[in-house]
């Protein structure tokens, strides 16, 4: 089973890297860019077959290590 955990900064948390990327995109003349927030993607292969079990495992992984829930949100997706 393949899964993806996406970690993003919570709203209101300053993201200087996102801001710098946003500035760079705007400097290319890409005028449609409003704002950029940078995050992280973890593609994880699991030896599990049960979806609920996989989701529980990924939730534990996200809360224990992948995300710092003080400032970050996470989203779990089962890809296949």
């Amino acid at each position, binding site marked *: 089973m393949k899964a993806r955990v996406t970690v993003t900064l919570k709203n209101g948390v300053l993201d*200087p890297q996102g801001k710098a990327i946003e500035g760079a995109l705007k400097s290319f003349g890409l005028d449609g860019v409003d704002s950029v927030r940078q995050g992280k993607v973890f593609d994880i292969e699991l030896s599990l077959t049960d979806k609920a079990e996989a989701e529980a495992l990924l939730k534990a992984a996200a809360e*224990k*290590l992948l995300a*710092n829930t*003080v*400032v970050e949100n996470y989203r779990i997706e089962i890809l296949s």
Partner: protein
Amino acid sequence: MKSAVITFPGSNREGDVIRALRRATGHEPVSIWHQDMDLPQGTDLVVLPGGFSYGDYLRCGAIAARAPVMDAVRTHAAKGGLVLGICNGFQILVESGLLPGVLMRNAGLKFICKMQHLKVGRTDTPFTSAYSEGQIIKVAIAHGEGNYVADTDTIARLEGENRVAFRYCTAEGNTKAGNPNGSLNDIAGIYSERLNVLGMMPHPENLIETLVGGIDGRGLFESLSAFRRAA
């Protein structure tokens, strides 16, 4: 004062801390490896030194905070034992939940390595008794992620309980103008609720010799040396 200094893969200031502790306390600190499960019997103080544990992968301090030895550090802190985290050590303390908040990328995005003035907070703690309240000291900072952030309630609690140990300031003591990294309320270091855990971004261990720029960091180690735990 029996102290133990923990080395993680990528720590690089453990030698400086060991030297500062040896000099101030007259005792040889014990060196602990991150995979050790226990602290030596009778340890009074555990130090998490600066550096780049696990290459700062994922988030600074995130992986070190889950190292085997950290369970022993948590138990030690819960019993009232002293814990000092400097720079990466502070990042490890917030990641491990021993201190609140988080250290984000510096507001200016740059790694900052320079001398920095700090204003000392309260002095009735095991870490700062050799200083005077409001004293301005000069130490070194060297970090890319030292921008202290916490939610409004946490900041209000830290301020209300007088748990800000040090604030960044200019040589004249102006905190706002002296903030190098965007930290909320110019916070450079904080205490735990019971004042037995201190996390700070600046490096007092590097300012203990006039030969290398000053001795304002000595106070912290002399405070620790003078501290006697209430029986």
